[in-house]
């Protein structure tokens, strides 16, 4: 479900196909509902080792993240700090991961590559960036840990099921049309880099 509250676009789980297809690269949104964390080891198990993901995530958000979780007898699991990790590490697996799990909403840090963009276009999914390094602001969006799987992978790599409220701001970087904001930005950055190398090269000749 998508709604606009005080000028903010908020998507709530379960996400529908329409919710996802309406998003465009550059949109800024927030989400309510269920997210599942999954990073390197979860992708390796599901794709390289062909194990089944112990969660249904086709209408939820996958977050590339490894939280700090505190466990106590009185309050159970509590999210102390959480934030996105470098999504590009999952690029190798993400096309197949999207195809296999049906996930349509991925949250991470930095951009992803052409294969993920292809999966987004083919299967109607999006990738969003959450500003990273803000682990306390983000932890306060976590209402409850509703479950955990694959804890044998360690705290950072386990699959945590978390209910969130107002998680964001999420900036859509790949939309279901396959537009890839970071790929576009990197081309411009590379162009400017070449100009700078030539410029510094000339300056260096005068000082060295």
């Amino acid at each position, binding site marked *: 479900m998508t709604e606009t509250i005080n000028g903010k676009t908020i998507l709530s789980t379960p996400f529908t196909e329409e919710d996802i297809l309406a998003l465009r690269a550059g949109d800024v949104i927030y989400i309510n509902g269920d997210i599942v964390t999954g990073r390197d080891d979860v992708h390796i198990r599901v794709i390289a080792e062909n194990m089944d993901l112990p969660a249904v995530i086709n209408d939820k958000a996958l977050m590339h993240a*490894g*939280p700090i979780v505190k466990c106590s007898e009185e309050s159970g699991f509590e999210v102390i700090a*959480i934030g996105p990790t470098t999504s590009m590490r999952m690029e190798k697996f993400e096309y197949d991961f999207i195809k296999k799990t049906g996930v349509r909403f991925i949250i991470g*840090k930095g951009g992803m590559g052409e294969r993920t963009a292809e999966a987004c276009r083919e299967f109607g999914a999006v990738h969003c960036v959450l*500003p990273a*390094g803000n682990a306390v602001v983000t932890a306060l969006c976590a209402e409850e840990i509703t479950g955990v799987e694959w804890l044998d992978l360690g705290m950072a790599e386990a699959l945590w099921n978390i209910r969130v409220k107002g998680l964001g701001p999420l*900036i859509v970087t790949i939309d279901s049309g396959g537009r890839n904001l*970071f790929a576009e930005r990197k081309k411009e950055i*590379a162009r400017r880099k070449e100009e700078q190398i030539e410029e510094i090269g000339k300056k*260096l000749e005068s000082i060295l």
Partner: protein
Amino acid sequence: MTRKERIQMMTDIMASFIGYTAVHLPDDVISKLRELRDSEEDPAALSIYDMMFENMRLASELGRPSCQDTGFVQLRIECGSRFPLIDELEEILRCAVITATNNTPLRPNVVETFDEINTGNNTGTGAPSISWKIVPGWDGCGIYTYLAGGGCSLPGHAAVLMPGEGYKGVVRFVLDRIAEYGTNACPPLYVGVGIANSVDTAAMLSKEALFRPLGSHSPNEKAAEMERMLEDAINTMGIGPQGMGGKASVLGVSIQHAARHTATLGVGVSFGCWTHRRGHIVFERDLSFVTETHPGFTFVQ
């Protein structure tokens, strides 16, 4: 105090200090981020800076690590040859990391290579990493601490260039890496460059460069000039906070250098993310200490 009590005290101070650096950024990083925010005009970049400051405020208020990736602990020791606890120092630091992991808490990030098992306490073979410099005749001990996040460690790189590639080759080496990986490593970045004989020395110096205070420059005028050129160049590339565009892409650029074989040009580059959690603590022989990176740090037994 008995020797045993002094060992325990130094362990407790270090555990507490490492935990403190996970929660509170050093003063120079906070000032630099404020300066970058004040000169930013792009509304999206400004809102990212605002989120950073809100996060720093909440981390301090709630005493929680500011980033969930509390990193791999890297320590650089500058120890006086007459420091009374020199023999026990490595064990003190290893125990301090375990205590900090439990108390702060830090995220257990350390995995034993080949066994592929998370040790659960941020120590392991060669973890924390410790590099030594002995200061002859001194009876104090300085320790640089650094929580090296995965995201900003990932783009690190070193190589030996042909001398014919020259300093322009060094510039290309650094800027290529930033253009390819900089957007993912949590910019604005602190960029450390090492120029030396071989990959090992260049890489070590590039990490050492990240321990230098922001705004400092190499005492070598030509190196300092190259630091300024690289800083301007990377900012002009327009990576911006979180890679989403903006005026500033770096917190700073530091170059550390050493002499080389006439036939080599070794270059290394290391990156620190915007939440650059480095600390510096200097002990006297009686374990009184100064923490110039974190003047707010106090130790209560």
